[in-house]
């Protein structure tokens, strides 16, 4: 298991380097003046310009620039926003909010996605199954921002069950509605994945053997069908944590959540590329770590993997 962890860790290193290089390459090596890219095409003071040149070592060859940027990334020296705040501080403030939002979204999608998926899978072809299936397709088809507006309007404004926007401290209670919106599409995927997985496992030979042993129906479902079916679902959920944090842009925009997504969005609108690059780099790290955790979780759930 230790060897496995170590190997997985080693495999993630090229992904980390590759993804940061990709981001860096996109910003600094595409046609056009990098300074123009960094400034968002807006005129800027010579002081800001020279600060940017220094931060990104633009007089150096590309590879040197990249490695110096990596060094900065690792030491959390992420440069400054246009308003002069250190980017690291801004991220440090926004990150916990988004993390809270993403974890809540994850909890919601896991809870409802798995429960509905299991019931649908066990009762394949029945009314509940068909209803839930169609509903999941609709959720996937409707853009998140439309869902956001609809829920904000109905739940937040018309019914007044929850606050339509989130306060500046982003307490847990305020986040329920945005977290639901954020997790809804993934919920549909979790549901469908669980359902497929349950249907597949239900027909497995070892389930029949377990039934033949004289186990109760309940035990067959809980011990033999459920655990095996949840393996791919857990994998999906883990990888989804990273996606949720990156995908929070739209939701945070609609509900005015002071998180990472909002930060990126504002930076994009202002053309504040240094902040965008920094935030995206941090999110890549989060994503890579989430994937490592998933791999370990997977190995823990499925003993066959540990050998590899």
């Amino acid at each position, binding site marked *: 298991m230790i060897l496995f962890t170590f190997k997985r860790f080693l495999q993630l290193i090229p992904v980390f380097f*590759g993804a940061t290089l*990709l981001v860096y390459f996109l910003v600094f090596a595409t046609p056009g003046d990098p300074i*123009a890219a960094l400034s968002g095409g807006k005129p800027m003071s010579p002081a800001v310009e020279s600060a940017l040149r220094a931060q990104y070592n633009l007089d150096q060859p590309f590879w040197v620039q990249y490695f110096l940027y990596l060094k900065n990334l690792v030491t959390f020296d992420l440069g400054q926003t246009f308003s002069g705040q250190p980017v690291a501080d801004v991220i440090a403030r926004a990150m916990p909010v988004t993390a809270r939002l993403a974890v809540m979204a994850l909890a919601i999608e896991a809870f409802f996605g798995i429960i509905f998926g299991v019931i649908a899978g066990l009762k394949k072809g029945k009314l509940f199954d068909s209803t839930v299936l169609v509903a999941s397709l609709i959720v996937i*088809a409707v*853009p998140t921002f439309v869902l956001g507006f609809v829920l904000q309007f109905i739940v937040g*404004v018309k019914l007044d069950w929850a606050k339509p926007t989130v306060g500046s401290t982003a307490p847990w209670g305020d986040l329920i509605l945005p977290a639901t919106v954020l997790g809804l599409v993934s919920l549909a995927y979790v549901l469908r994945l669980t359902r497929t997985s349950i249907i597949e496992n239900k027909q497995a030979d070892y389930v029949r053997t377990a039934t033949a042993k004289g186990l109760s129906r309940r035990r067959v479902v809980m011990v033999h069908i459920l655990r095996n079916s949840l393996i791919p679902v857990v994998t999906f959920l883990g990888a989804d944590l990273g996606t949720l944090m990156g995908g929070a842009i739209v939701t945070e925009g609609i509900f005015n959540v002071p998180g990472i997504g909002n930060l990126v969005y504002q930076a994009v609108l202002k053309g504040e590329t240094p902040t965008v690059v920094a935030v995206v780099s941090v999110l*890549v790290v989060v994503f890579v770590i989430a994937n490592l955790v998933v791999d370990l979780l997977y190995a823990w759930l499925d003993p066959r993997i540990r050998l590899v």
Partner: protein
Amino acid sequence: MSENPTPEIIEPTASAPRVRAGKISSRRIEHYVAPLEETPLQSVDKVDETATPLSMWAQAWRSLRTQPLFIISAALILLVIAVAAFPGLFTSTSPTSCSLEFARQGPSAGHPLGFTFQGCDIYARIMYGAQASVLVGLFTTIAVVVFGGILGALAGYYGGWLDAILARLADIFFALPLILGAIIIMQLPAFRENRSIWTVIITLAIFGWPQMARITRGAVIEAKSSDYVMASRSLGLSKFKTLVKHVVPNSLAPVIVVSTISLGIYIVAEATLSFLGLGLPPSIMSWGNDIASAQISVRNNPEILMWPALALSITVLSFIMLGDAVRDALDPKSRKG
């Protein structure tokens, strides 16, 4: 070659060879023979010549055409494509002749869905906006299938270093969620200043191909280990020709399913980018842009946002449902034999 972690033979085989004579019961066992006419003997392994011959695609088509899910989604898609190709046939109102005097007015004769914030006819804008969404979805899918599909097929078929590099490359792209990656690209000067349908397509394709490459790779690997591939190779068919003639046709099913569903997902992604102000330029009429510009009045006039959103969602839903129906029809488990 898999290794056996434990020996198969457990006991020492040196034990004296036993002559097994069969068991004889002390009970009297009746020898029963069924009357012949009850189960007439058929000749061994006779070909059923009554059924009409059907290829796999023909079988899939036969099961598809009776499925309500398929019929509904296919009809809707045909309608959307017709609207996208000839919007003028579906409305005589110009979507661009807007007049602020009609701003936010409700439905009236000749304007079934009312007017937008700028006083444009919503129905006409929906009809004319279909084109952008359909084009983005279609061309992104084509680009992704061509690029991701070819790379994935080659990697899966030839394996080795090509496969290793592709796997790592895909991992790297997966580390950047679609929207996040698209935001970075779309705000680059080169893209930001030349925004058009094509920049959106390129952006979505850049982040969409790894998924298609993975799907194709998996399907190709499964197909290439089949005996019929080995049989063709030993008939003298070259390695590349075997890929083209046998492996690729047999790997198409999952690719078709995933591209159909992805087409819908790309349409949503375009709308999301447009909503963020990073998608199609405002000059291009599109559902995404109309939804984005309607958000300022969402509290008071939600219907201005809802109509294009509904059109978009129904279109996307049709593609996803179509993909689902095709998946069921092509599922090898539900096929006989």
